[in-house]
């Protein structure tokens, strides 16, 4: 087995939320006991609705936020504390792609300067060489040379995301966390950027954490996929398997809602309130919306267990696939 580059164990993070003038602050658990591992050259996709805690998870994996519980290990060492010199140095090896590329770029600096900046920060190469390296990277992400002197607002959304990508890859990182990298882009451009990401990942043997609410995009990019609901993984497994045969009722609902060519499935519509981390239901957090929920689901939170084929599911009903299939049909 390939040793994993990033390993997170039991990550949890709460935010204090205060209600009203007299309200006490309530701890909202955005992420609640998540473990994951990613190896070099591998992509782990994370799917979930907004509010599921997937962005917080991504930020903790990068060390941008300290977990309340659990720990992240990167390349066999503990993640340094945020803001320290070691933490800053480690940035050269792990990078992030943001949802809003315009927001992630400095409006007042030319593209070339921004792409060059990681080399300036980490003092890589001779100053004279850095510009050449930046131009080369721009070419590699498919941006022509004449865009180098432009400013972010003069570029299209897709071009901006390429710039962000180029900047992230300048120090040849080992890990890339992409938080909804294409959801702000036009659908026609999403595919181009996704293809570029996949190509670069293969070329550079990047470990990638790909966070999105969009199943199709995740499927295109990831070998393995984890489905997140209210701060916890509810199902995890090989991407093709998981989408072909979802075991958790939530995954089933997600998959049935996304149109898949060829397969004809019955559409499962989710009912009830969308998940609110401030009011986490008892037992299995999904039970109020689950069409199959039993009394056990209301009382007892299911543990993550491995079923056949390396698939991991956190559902009481998934223990008996036959039962589940019968009910769903």
């Amino acid at each position, binding site marked *: 087995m390939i040793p994993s580059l990033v390993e997170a164990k039991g990550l949890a993070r709460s935010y204090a939320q205060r209600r009203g003038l007299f309200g006490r602050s309530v701890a909202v658990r955005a992420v609640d006991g998540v473990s994951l591992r990613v190896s070099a050259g591998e992509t782990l996709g994370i799917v979930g609705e907004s509010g599921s805690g997937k962005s917080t998870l991504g930020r903790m994996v990068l060390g941008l936020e300290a977990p309340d519980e659990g720990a992240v290990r990167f390349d066999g060492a503990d993640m340094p504390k945020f803001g320290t010199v070691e933490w800053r140095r480690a940035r050269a090896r792990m990078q992030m792609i943001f949802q809003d590329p315009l927001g*992630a770029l400095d409006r007042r600096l030319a593209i070339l300067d921004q792409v060059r900046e990681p080399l300036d920060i980490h003092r890589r190469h001779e100053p004279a060489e850095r510009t050449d390296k930046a131009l080369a990277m721009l070419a590699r992400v498919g941006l022509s040379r004449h865009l180098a002197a432009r400013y972010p607002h003069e570029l299209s959304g897709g071009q901006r995301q390429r710039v962000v990508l180029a900047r992230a890859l300048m120090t040849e990182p080992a890990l890339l966390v992409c938080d909804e990298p294409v959801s702000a882009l036009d659908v026609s451009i999403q595919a*181009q950027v996704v293809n570029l990401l996949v190509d670069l990942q293969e070329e550079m043997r990047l470990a990638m954490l790909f966070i999105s609410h969009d199943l199709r995009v995740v499927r295109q990019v990831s070998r393995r996929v984890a489905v997140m609901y209210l701060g916890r993984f509810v199902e995890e497994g090989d991407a093709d398997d998981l989408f072909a045969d979802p075991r958790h009722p939530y995954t089933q609902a997600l998959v049935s809602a996304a149109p898949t060519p060829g397969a004809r499935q019955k559409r499962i519509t989710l009912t009830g309130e969308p998940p609110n981390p401030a009011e986490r239901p008892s037992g299995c957090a999904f039970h109020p919306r689950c069409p199959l929920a039993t009394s056990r689901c209301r009382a007892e939170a299911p543990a993550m267990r491995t079923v056949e084929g390396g698939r991991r599911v956190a559902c009481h009903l998934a223990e008996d696939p036959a039962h589940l299939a019968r009910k769903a049909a």
Partner: protein
Amino acid sequence: MTDRALDNAPARPGHLAALKAIPPLVWVAILWLAAVLFVAIFADLVAPYSYTAPNLRNRLVAPGHALHWLGTDELGRDVLSRLIVSIRISLLIAFGATVISACFGTALGFLAAYFRGLVEQAVLMLADFQASMPFLILALAVLAFFGSSLVLLVGLMGLFGWERYARIARGLAISAGAQGYASAVTQLGAPPTQVYLRHILPNIASTLIVSMTLVFPEVILLESGLSFLGLGVQPPMTSLGNMVGFGREYITRAPWIMLAPASVIVLTTLSVSLLGDWLRDRLDPTLQ
């Protein structure tokens, strides 16, 4: 090969177009300020006489005199020459004070945004305190305790308005850090000094400059007020407010001694205010 065809980012209006859109009143303001600036810089060359040279034979000469265009004062000193030197000193103090307060306030605002917690609370409390006390009274208290000197005066007025820059800088830095370029650059591994000075500062500079043009006239008014009361610039040095203060005694016999500096004060503050208002409307409508 790329998605350049979809490039539909709105083009920024060019600088030439911006020039054409300047209203006539703002043009007048700019011209006046340019003239005042010129006079302040080349005061020594422009002034016809030494501003301290008395001429006892030509005392209280009315304006329009062939040798003294703006007349003379009670000691026969040339009002025009005194005015020119006063402009230089008043502008120097006002510029110095504005720059000091902008730097000081921005630095405190950045510190508050970076450290949050107690530091932020302390800065905000000081800002509230500063905003809630009439500055003139604080300034008078300090002058009473220390006596007046030019250095103290500039330093004191350098504290005027810092709380506005501090609030703006803090607010903008926090919003830049919460999401967007500042956190992106932090995430690249840049040290905080670089994040704040290379990225955040240039991005909020236009807002800060607009605030400076809004504070500047108030600084001129403050200095001239203090000097008028005899507690600012001390003779033999002269400033605009100082001239008005001394000219007041001759208001019945020689009103020009007081009217000349008074109109320079009014025209200058009015010009900076008009320019500042216009800049704010153009560059930063979010400022109140």
